């Protein structure tokens, strides 16, 4: 315990600093790296830029969803409604667009606005009615999904026009000699950076972390607690809409799109070191967590493990990662 000075790091040499940085780096990056190596060993063509980009564009929706979920998780809440938002985005977009390319833009904007409304409802129910977010978003899960299916009568209607689907399916051709640079990856990078800025470089993010850490202290420090909390839900729902647009683009209309993604996004965020009940979390690490899960699925698939066992292994890995995090946190105290 010393008086604070400007140079806080006790490590001096460059190599020492790098070693220190590597040692304190979030373990999820190493997990992702090991899994990546595993996949490449099993399937060497995977690492070819074209193939890897295909993989990345497939992973973009869950990664974005996880990044959005982090906002709610660090604020101390949960958002179980994201899967439903994805489903409804796909179904309702198809009804509204109905294969008319002229409608794409306003449909996407409308969907984003719809996502904002869902987030607003989640946030306001949590903030003003004081309903625990787990329950509030369980309610909106049912409501949002119900609205989507009610509107469509239970089966997808209409088509998504090609210029809507291009976001999840196409890319810029001829870039850097690649076959195609997927728009999904571009969106992933752009939105990922935006969310990173928001959580880690803007005052807003620090207020969000403070809120998740200690809501009362945050309120007494002048943080507009309700506004910050609600906005976290809004951000989460809107990224879910983006994920929905990408998934709809990639796979076309289906009511199965989005099922189970809520738990997957929470698990991925936790794998990325996000602390449930708030106060700690990082967008890039959470995205790496989502990527690690996708890599894990690919690897298990390549290993030829039957599908059911993949669930079991996924469960083991999630528990193991979190237990390890808890264990090392205890050790570091």
């Amino acid at each position, binding site marked *: 315990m010393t008086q604070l000075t400007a140079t806080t790091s006790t490590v001096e040499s460059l190599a020492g600093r790098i070693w220190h940085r590597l040692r304190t780096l979030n373990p999820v990056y190493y997990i992702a790296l090991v899994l990546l190596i595993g996949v490449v060993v099993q399937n060497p063509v995977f690492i070819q830029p074209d193939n890897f980009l295909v993989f990345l564009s497939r992973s973009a929706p869950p990664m974005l969803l996880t990044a959005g979920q982090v906002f709610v998780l660090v604020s101390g809440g949960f958002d179980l409604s994201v899967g439903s938002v994805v489903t409804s985005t796909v179904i309702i977009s198809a009804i509204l667009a109905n294969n008319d390319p002229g409608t794409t833009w306003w449909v996407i904007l409308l969907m984003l606005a719809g996502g904002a409304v869902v987030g607003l409802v989640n946030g306001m129910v949590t903030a003003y009615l004081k309903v625990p977010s787990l329950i509030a978003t369980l309610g909106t899960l049912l409501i949002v999904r119900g609205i989507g299916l009610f509107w469509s009568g239970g089966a997808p209607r209409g088509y998504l026009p090609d210029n809507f689907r291009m976001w999840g*399916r196409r890319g810029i051709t001829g870039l850097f000699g690649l076959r195609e640079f997927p728009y999904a990856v571009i969106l992933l990078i752009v939105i990922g950076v935006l969310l990173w800025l928001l959580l880690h470089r803007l005052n807003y993010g620090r207020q969000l972390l403070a809120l998740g850490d200690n809501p009362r202290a945050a309120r007494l420090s002048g943080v507009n607690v309700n506004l910050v909390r609600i906005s976290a839900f809004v951000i989460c729902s809107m990224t879910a809409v983006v994920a929905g647009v990408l998934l709809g683009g990639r796979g076309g209309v*289906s009511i*199965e799109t989005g099922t189970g993604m809520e738990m997957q996004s929470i698990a991925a965020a936790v794998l990325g070191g996000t602390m449930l009940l708030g106060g700690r979390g990082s967008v890039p690490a959470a995205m790496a967590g989502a990527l690690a899960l996708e890599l894990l699925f690919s690897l298990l698939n390549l290993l030829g493990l*039957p*599908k059911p066992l993949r669930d079991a292994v996924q469960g083991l890995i999630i528990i193991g990662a979190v237990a390890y995090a808890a*264990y090392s946190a205890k050790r570091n105290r």
Partner: protein
Amino acid sequence: MKPFRILFFVLAAMLMVALVACGGGAPPAAQQAEQAAQQVEQAAGEAAQDVEKAADEAVAEVSEATSSTSEALGSEGAAVATEFYSQADYEAALRMRDLKPLNPDDPVWVQYLEENWVDTTQYKKDPPYTVCFSNAGVNNPWRVVGYTTMQAEVDLHPEIEKFIHVDAEGNDEKQISDIQDLVAGGNCDILIVSPNTTKALTPAVEEACKSLPVIVFDRGVQTDCPVAFVQPFGGFAGYNFGYEGAKFLVDNLPAKANVIALRILPGVDVLETRWAGARNLFAESDLNVVAVEFGDGNNDKVKTIVTDAIQKYGHIDGVWMDAGATAVAALEAFEDAGQPYPVINGEDQQDFLVKWQQEGLTAIAPTFPTFQWRTAVIAAMMTLKGERVNDPWALPQPAITQANLDQYVQPNMPPLFYAMCGCETMPDFPQRWGGTAP
């Protein structure tokens, strides 16, 4: 960290047990499969005169044989289904393929391939009628089209005063409660059931039979108590569906072509029998079935599976599917990978049919026709009027081929509209089915 170690041990042990249970010993299975299959053929052949009796004897051996076969077929031992395969049923389905409707002049939804008349005078009743319908769910597009068609059929019958629809939302437990509620309410003159799962709903249907006439359609139940069971091919539609698609692939692909089988999920009887119908044919063929994968009926997952398979095996030449809802997603995976379209079987959905016509695919669309939802209502009316009905009512099961494709392509209909609905001439078509006037 003692508990840590204990826990790890327990989990590891659980995992190993599971690995063993999954059939880690795949290699010898292939040989066993062949032998077992031969034994089965013998057993089946000997018992050909008395199918009923032979079935029981054969089942035990068959289950062993088929499970090994599926292992040989599946990549590394795909999940094993035993309950739903019956050699006798499979052969019955093949026999039905050669039958022609006995009343070819009637509309397709009231045609029958066999005569199995039962008397219903005991149920005769004067109108108006209250018809109750316990539905497994309207949780997929096929069921939505079917249910819409059913409602339209109900509207054609002025003698139906009330039509009570109860939706089980895909939950066995709930459907049992629903049926109990309907029976207890005491208002139903007849009960139509579309069971969520065959085995689970059997007790509830048995119970309902004691109080009122029951019509079962779509999926079956394991009891004879209902007045009539309505299904294409009289309950063997699944085998035929799978066989139709597999046969098309076998006929249209060169030897050693790579085929991938895309399934929705394991354990649902109508889907299991489809795979059973295809599996035997693939086993006998010289096609190379590289993978059997479950895509949950999810476009995104199917696309991922196909993309990975293309990457892993270099080329995929044929795609067999147990349901066509994700066929277009599978085709798009080929487009996105820059590969030529495979030989494929889809189903009678508009998006697939449109794609087929536009791209000139080599394809076939076996169907599980939604017109059977009309037939169920018609059978119910016949029962209440005391007219004789067929049990089982073996409807025809038409497939859409290159030859009759143009007849079924209706671009004004929603993408997941099932063309084989027999509803084109009904009032409010196409708006009621979500289409726009052409």
